[in-house]
């Protein structure tokens, strides 16, 4: 069937600069650039271009420009080009449209409507270059009160549940080996270890050879497909996470397509090569809070009560009541993933229409748990589209203990958000199992880029904290007085629990 879609991108080649080196041809896994043997010139098949910019960046002569096509249908505010083309694609295939990365729709980004405070004259600001500044964060359940033995030596009498320590309130989100390449996965693991934070295995298992070295920095996931799980996997980790939902696709499961289940992915997930790895939408042993409690405690038993257990859910309507149940079910950490969270593959219609923004979710959750007097029983790790250190510090002031970064980490390693993760053809070697492509990602360089990002953001967080006259991130947690809203409706300020600027 002739496709009625026109190319998304235009490939503009400066023929004077191009010396037909065929570098772009080698770089592009989508087959956009072809060398025409007859004319001895490079030609482009624009329909194949994903707009990932790999060829542009690696062109030795800067001969290429890739930009959104100038072709346009008659402008129509109702029938946008995207709506029109998605419909055409479905008319041509009869299928569900899959996509990657977080939603690109213009939902309000509350971070851009919240401003931070700073000290002036009284409560002087602190210079983090000269004074100690504490970003260290402990994730896990905290006791209701502390009992101290005072006869003789002062000793703690209260038993404290397992907590994990991270040097800065930034963790890497769940990205499974299978969704991302081995090199990308290993780079996240190495950077976590070097910096002193945690990465998350997702539901793809943890390759055996990485367990001894990186297990101590891993949050291992137990999701509805239960892939790659054995007692050693659970016990080598810093924490265990039950994945119930994901911000990019709340309420649905996942399919790792058979073509991505290579020998090594199969070994790590412990399934035959080439089968679809299907993660059902729900955990079929969890149909209630009581059932969830049973799995939480099964995992605590399996790890001898030595590791905090996290439960990850997507932020949806009324999720705070569910989260309260999750805390009461025994979770030590609640990971909450917002509307803008990323994914390796999700139906576009779900990604762009289901869930609520993380800013509102953090505030609603923190307030709910405080009102019920159980906020101390769990840490809140929030996720879903954090773009900068200022987003992170605002999240903490709204009540989060720490944040997961996924998209940001991928961007640090080279991702340009072309949203073709689901094709497995990532030219940047990130979301692919093709050895030719994944080999492009140098783990040493990628690790370095990741630790650079963590260091830079941590430093910026210290600067902002110091400016507010605060010397420990603990003191900012849920401290909404340091936030003000701009350009927000009354109800939005109310949900966020912040005042308007100038108030």
């Amino acid at each position, binding site marked *: 069937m002739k496709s009625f879609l026109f190319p998304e991108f235009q490939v503009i080649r400066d023929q004077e600069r191009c010396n037909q080196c065929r570098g772009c041809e080698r770089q592009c896994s989508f087959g956009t650039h072809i060398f025409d043997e007859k004319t001895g010139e490079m030609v482009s098949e624009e329909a194949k271009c994903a707009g990932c910019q790999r060829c542009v960046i690696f062109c030795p002569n800067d001969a290429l420009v890739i930009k959104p096509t100038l072709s346009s249908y008659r402008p129509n505010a109702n029938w946008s080009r995207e709506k029109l083309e998605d419909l055409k694609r479905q008319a041509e295939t009869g299928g*569900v449209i899959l996509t990657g990365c977080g939603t690109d729709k213009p939902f309000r980004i509350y971070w851009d409507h919240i401003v931070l405070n700073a000290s002036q004259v009284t409560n002087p600001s602190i210079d983090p270059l000269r004074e100690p500044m504490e970003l260290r964060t402990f994730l896990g359940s905290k006791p209701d009160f502390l009992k101290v033995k005072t006869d003789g030596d002062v000793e703690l009498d209260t038993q404290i549940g397992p907590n994990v320590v991270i040097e800065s309130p930034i963790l890497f989100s769940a990205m499974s080996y299978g969704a991302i390449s081995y090199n990308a996965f290993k780079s996240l693991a190495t950077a976590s270890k070097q910096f002193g934070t945690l990465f998350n295995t997702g539901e793809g298992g943890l390759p055996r050879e990485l367990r001894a070295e990186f297990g101590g920095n891993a949050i291992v996931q137990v999701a509805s497909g239960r892939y790659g799980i054995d007692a*050693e996997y659970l016990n080598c980790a810093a924490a265990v996470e039950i994945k119930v939902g994901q911000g990019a696709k709340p309420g649905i499961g996942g399919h790792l397509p058979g073509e991505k289940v290579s020998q090594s992915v199969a070994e790590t997930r412990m399934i035959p090569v080439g089968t679809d790895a299907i993660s059902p939408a729900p955990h079929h042993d969890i149909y209630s809070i009581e059932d969830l409690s049973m799995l939480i405690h*099964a995992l605590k038993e*399996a790890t001898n009560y030595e590791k905090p257990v996290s439960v990850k859910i997507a932020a949806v309507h009324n999720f705070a009541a569910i989260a309260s149940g999750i805390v009461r079910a025994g979770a030590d950490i609640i990971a909450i993933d917002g509307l803008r969270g990323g994914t390796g593959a999700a139906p576009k219609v779900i990604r762009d229409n289901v869930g609520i923004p993380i800013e509102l979710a953090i505030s609603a959750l923190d307030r709910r748990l405080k009102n019920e007097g159980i906020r101390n029983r769990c840490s809140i790790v929030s996720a879903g589209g954090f773009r900068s250190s200022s987003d992170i510090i605002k999240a903490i002031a709204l009540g989060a203990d720490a944040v997961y970064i996924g998209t940001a980490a991928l961007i640090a390693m080279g991702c340009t958000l072309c949203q073709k993760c689901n094709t497995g053809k990532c030219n940047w070697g990130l979301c692919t199992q093709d050895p030719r492509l994944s080999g492009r990602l140098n783990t040493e360089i990628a690790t370095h880029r990741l630790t650079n990002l963590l260091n830079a953001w941590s430093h910026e967080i210290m600067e902002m904290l110091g400016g507010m006259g605060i010397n420990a991130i603990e003191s900012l947690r849920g401290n909404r007085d340091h936030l003000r809203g701009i350009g927000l409706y009354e109800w939005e300020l109310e949900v966020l629990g912040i005042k308007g600027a100038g108030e």
Partner: protein
Amino acid sequence: METVVIDATGIPTKELNERLRAFMLNGAERFVLKNICGQRYIGTRLFSKNGTKRKLDIDITGTPGSDLGAFMSGHHVRVHGNVQDGVGNTMDDGEIIVEGRAGDVLGMSMRGGKIFIRDNTGYRTALHMKEYLDKKPVLVIGGTSQDFLGEYMAGGIVIILGLGDKPHTQTFIGTGMHGGVIYIRGKVDKLQVAGQVEISEPKVEDREVLDKFVGEFVDHFPDLGLSKEGILKGEFIRLAPKSKRPYAKIYA
């Protein structure tokens, strides 16, 4: 062989499993647990990081609570009585023998080891069971199961013997199945089985599998007074997925 006998009357789950673990670390190899009444996760905590891959023998009288043998790595459990839900949940290796019936989600996501249930089982038996190379879970059920047998099943072997010759009335068998095999002794209507599943007669190699595990089943339950040959004489059907990729064509 050092045997530890525990009267579990009134001992809460966590404390019981703590004791079992302490005994295991001290070298115990056989446990006899008496008066078990609802204690969960028995066998789950018996994993030692320091690589002791010893297989313990756990003999249980009473009714263990849910998640018996969840995440279990290689022990041998025999229950003189019924069991509740979630038995063998994500079990890695080992053997569970139940002289009675089992509740729901039996052997969910089980990826190794064997489970033998003398009587019937509940809903969603063998849900998302999976296999990898030589790790192939086996589940043999003397009676029959409820609905959603083998849902999302991705690997392993399930054998439903239908002893007592009651009809198999469960529906939605093998919904989303994309690996493994189910053998059922007796009749099942096509309408009870999901569209992704192919119904066929067992071939020679299937007969070998049945011979082996039905033999083990009979050996585990001598009180039934049944012979392997007698059971195998009955008619079996074989259920296997039509495709390893049931959802390959739903995307644009």
